[in-house]
């Protein structure tokens, strides 16, 4: 089955799924999961690279390909969608518009296949736009302020889309075609300034979608307000569209020809790459600080996405073969970890109805699997070995160290260490610490939600121990485009500086843990007590009954830290002020042009008349 058939199948299935969901939403969601699985299976089954066309249009045909450069993204998209869909079988129970939700997520699946499977820019753009408006409707379904969030999302997405289409047509003009292969073949004929323009347009579009500072403003609200299972898709895949674009443009645009001359730099021909690398650094730092200061778990993860978007961009613009592979790996890492985090926070929301950190607490007793998923995800996100996140970070660090870029390395380190702070915040506030009375009877989430989270957990650990599983397609991609591939085996990675053996790290860590367990078990068995039996020394503190939250140190968790940043300006506020100013000036325009009396209109006409003549005359 070529991708074009899979896309048609997805399109048809979306309607069927909608109808089934109208009848029984659970059956519809199960059907959706099965559809995704089957489509994924067919893609896997016809493992050979292939390209295909979809010609429902008379002379505009959509080109698709399944090839070295997109297979990893296709599988990523499909697996994330399968996991989220599995999670949704129980997870969308409280949603208001279940059939529509299923319908739209199936369309999202279709657009993911389309964007990642496209063999030309127009196809990519069409499915990108499809994704934009479908996501708009999906985000709008969410919580209280989701409508505004969706509009902001839309606004930024449209800017990205329009930047992109301008770039596409510039390419079209320059090389007379918009297929990737055409671009590769005729890349040399484009003039330098045009190359620069095109690159800027595409990269800016990618940055908006990817949520890099200072274009990240849509992320916070879109993430926190959208329906939880859709947030996972949003951060797991849709945000990655932006980096896929940068990846593509990095891959096809300058690379195919430059690489042979200068294998160490991908986008080095253009001076912009340094600028973007530093932008990435700033994005990492600001995303990290902002994430530390959030109180809402989903907003926190949103800002962590800003920071990680910085890592990905850093890797892509940095340019070494190792960094490039690290960037692709980091896309996968962040997809998986964000998926795990959002799913687990979604699970918490499913049971408790809030994602505010200081309102929750102590849920580990009620939701152990959710906790485990979250724990594994954050360990991976913070880049602690032996999980998957460490691999990509290690690769990025290696290239930074090799080239001695100490500001960028500083940013990367900052983000990495800062991530301990922000990932620990929900862990402490949501799962650990004091449990409020009202959450005492909270149950673990139903089976399918657990299944979805479990898969994410297993994958994170598996890829951490055996990173070669994901590095292999990256290596073959690098070979295909002629970059010197990174050296890696199933569990070993080699940089020029040192060797990383994930299996050894994992084994040693496991051994250490077992040793610790043995020592622990050697000594006397502990007495288990209730949470607040010890520190109040047996006394019943009256406030503990009425106001348990004051003993749950979760609000302003990093107060001393936030005091450092009290006086810093906020980009979002700046945008907001600008928007308000603009909006009020629109009112003035309306007053001026459309709220006059008849005399006023005639004045307007006469003046226009005279002005046009006068300009010509003098």
């Amino acid at each position, binding site marked *: 089955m070529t991708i074009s058939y899979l896309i048609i199948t997805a399109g048809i299935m979306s309607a069927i799924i909608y109808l089934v969901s109208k009848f029984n939403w659970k059956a519809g969601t199960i059907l959706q999961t099965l559809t995704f699985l089957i489509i994924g299976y067919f893609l896997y089954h016809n493992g050979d690279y292939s390209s295909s066309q979809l010609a429902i249009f008379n002379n505009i045909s959509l080109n698709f390909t399944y090839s070295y450069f997109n297979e990893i993204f296709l599988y990523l998209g499909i697996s994330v969608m399968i996991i989220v869909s599995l999670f949704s079988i129980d997870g969308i129970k409280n949603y208001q518009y279940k059939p529509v939700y299923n319908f739209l997520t199936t369309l999202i699946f279709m657009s993911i296949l389309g964007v990642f499977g496209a063999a030309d820019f127009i196809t990519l753009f069409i499915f990108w*736009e499809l994704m934009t408006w479908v996501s708009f409707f999906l985000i709008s379904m969410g919580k209280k302020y989701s409508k505004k969030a969706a509009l902001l999302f839309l606004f930024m997405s*449209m800017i990205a889309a329009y930047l992109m*289409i301008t770039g596409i047509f510039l390419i079209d003009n320059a090389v007379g075609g918009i297929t990737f292969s055409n671009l590769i073949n005729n890349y040399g004929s484009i003039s330098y300034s045009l190359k620069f323009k095109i690159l800027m347009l595409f990269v800016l579009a990618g940055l908006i979608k990817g949520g890099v500072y200072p274009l990240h403003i849509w992320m916070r609200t879109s993430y926190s307000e959208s329906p939880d299972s859709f947030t996972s898709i949003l951060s797991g895949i849709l945000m990655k569209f932006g980096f896929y674009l940068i990846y593509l443009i990095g891959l096809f645009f300058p690379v195919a020809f430059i690489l042979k001359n200068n294998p160490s730099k991908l986008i080095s021909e253009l001076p912009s790459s340094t600028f973007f690398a530093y932008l990435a650094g700033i994005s990492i730092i600001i995303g990290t600080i902002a994430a530390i200061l959030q109180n809402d778990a989903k907003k926190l993860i949103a800002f962590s996405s800003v920071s990680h978007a910085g890592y990905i961009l850093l890797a892509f613009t940095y340019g070494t073969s190792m960094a490039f592979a690290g960037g692709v790996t980091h896309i996968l890492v962040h997809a998986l970890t964000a998926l795990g985090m959002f799913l687990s926070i979604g699970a918490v929301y499913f049971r408790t109805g809030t994602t505010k950190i200081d309102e929750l607490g102590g849920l580990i007793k009620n939701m152990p699997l959710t906790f485990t998923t979250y724990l594994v995800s954050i360990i991976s996100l913070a880049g602690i070995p032996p999980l998957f996140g460490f691999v990509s970070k290690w690769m990025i660090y290696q290239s930074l160290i090799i080239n001695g870029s100490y500001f960028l390395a500083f940013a990367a380190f900052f983000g990495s260490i800062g991530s301990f702070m922000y990932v620990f915040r929900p862990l402490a506030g949501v799962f650990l610490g004091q449990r409020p009375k009202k959450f005492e009877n909270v149950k673990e989430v139903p089976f399918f939600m657990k299944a979805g989270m479990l898969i994410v957990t297993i994958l994170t650990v598996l890829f951490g121990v055996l990173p070669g599983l994901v590095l292999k397609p990256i290596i073959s991609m690098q070979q295909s485009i002629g970059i010197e591939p990174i050296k890696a085996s199933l569990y070993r990675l080699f940089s020029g500086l040192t060797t990383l053996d994930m299996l050894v790290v994992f084994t040693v860590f496991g051994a250490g843990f077992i040793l610790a367990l043995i020592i622990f078990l050697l000594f006397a068995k502990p007495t288990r007590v209730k949470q607040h039996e010890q520190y109040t020394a047996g006394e019943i503190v009256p406030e503990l009954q009425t106001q348990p939250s004051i003993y749950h140190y979760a609000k302003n968790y990093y107060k001393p830290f936030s005091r450092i940043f009290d006086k810093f300006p906020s980009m979002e506020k700046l945008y907001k002020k600008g928007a308000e100013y603009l909006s009020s000036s629109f009112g003035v325009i309306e007053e001026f042009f459309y709220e006059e009396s008849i005399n006023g*209109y*005639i004045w307007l006409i006469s003046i226009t*008349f005279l002005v046009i003549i006068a300009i010509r005359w003098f």
Partner: protein
Amino acid sequence: MINEPVLLIVIPLFAGFLIPIIYLISKKAIKYIPIIAVFYNLFVLIRLIQINSTSLSYFTTGGYKVPFGINLIFNSQIGIILFAINLLALIALIFFLKKEFHLVNSFAYTLGFIIAISAVNGMVLTGDLFNLFVFMELAAIAGYIIATHKRGYYPSFLYVIISTFGSLLFLLGTITIYNVSGTLNMASVSENLVDVSPHFIVVLSVMFIVALSSESELLPLNAWVPKVYEKTSITGSIFFGSVLSTAALFAVIKVLVLVFKGGYEYLFNSLTIIGLATLLIGEFVAFKQRNVRKIVAYSSIAQAGLIISAVSVSLKNGTITDSIFNAAMFQLLNNIFAKGLILLGVGLLGYYSFEKLKGIAGKKKFASILITIGVLSIIGMPPFAGFWSKFFLIKSLIANKMIIFVAIFLASAIFEVYYYLRFIQNMYYEEFDSKIKINQISAVSYFLMISLSFMIIYIGFNPSSVMKTISDIFTGGII
């Protein structure tokens, strides 16, 4: 006889004369006359599109040869646009007769409507300047009547004054052109204008710009548009939004192409600027609105600005830049359907303010989905028709290196997307106010909406079929 485009004007006019006579016999029977007439028009149009090629043909009237008598211009592409206009007119008519006929002075409005159709067809077809003036006035008078549908007397008055001012300027310009060129035939005028002093041409062209901007909703004279849209009936809004504005725009484009095509760069530059200003200001103001009809009105203004500026850009070099021009015409065509669909749908829901439309999709699911299709098309989302016209427009503009134009266009498009989808969002995701009475929508109305959305989806999945016919409009046989 059936192959004469003049039938398109004569038949509705004749029907208009028939109405008073029939009215004497039966007051209800006048319902059927306009429908029969427009149906006949559509039938004639299909025939005409079939037998006429893409090249421009001139049809003389009264036996006078081309430069002297009144002549009509036709080719299959103009046929397509006319077909769309007449189709929308038919839809508006059916709706009017079904729903609003009994509410008003049926005689006057039916008469007004059928005359308007005749005049609109005349505006699109005629190749004579003074004739165009007459048809414009005729259409405007019919428009004034329709504008008073729901006792919107003040907007109608505003409309009359502004429009009359514009048409007087137009007349002034026409006569002056006649004076310097000795003919009123559009095609011949352009030849005779060659040795006229450039200063004179400037005054003349400015006169035309300002004059034509009233019917075509361009900036200095478009103040009536939102007011009239807001106060008229559903039929009226469809008439103004899809029928009259399209025909007027087309007439303007025709004048520009046929009369001023000889490279009057200043004229086209000013028109581009005016068009872009209209576009931007229209979108900005629409952005503030919280009433659907006003939104559509301002966005319609903006679209007119876009189309005019695109056309004038395409004409700037003295020849027609086909790709831009065709894309602009495609955009014009798509707007007919999409705007018609939105106005009809929202009219059927019965409320226009955001407040009252809150969450109405929960109660009127199907209608809301159809409206959504219209909106998605107008803001250019795949897989609907509007995507392709926007697509071709950007493509051709970039191909001709008009990056600034593209930037302005896209910037305004972002605002457009934003406010239209805010409206949709308001319809779907807000809490429905149970105090609001829900209107029943009849099967006929649904049928009308479905046929419109079918057109949109059909073009969306098969843009090249329309693009092929749209292409070469006017390029075939200009003298």
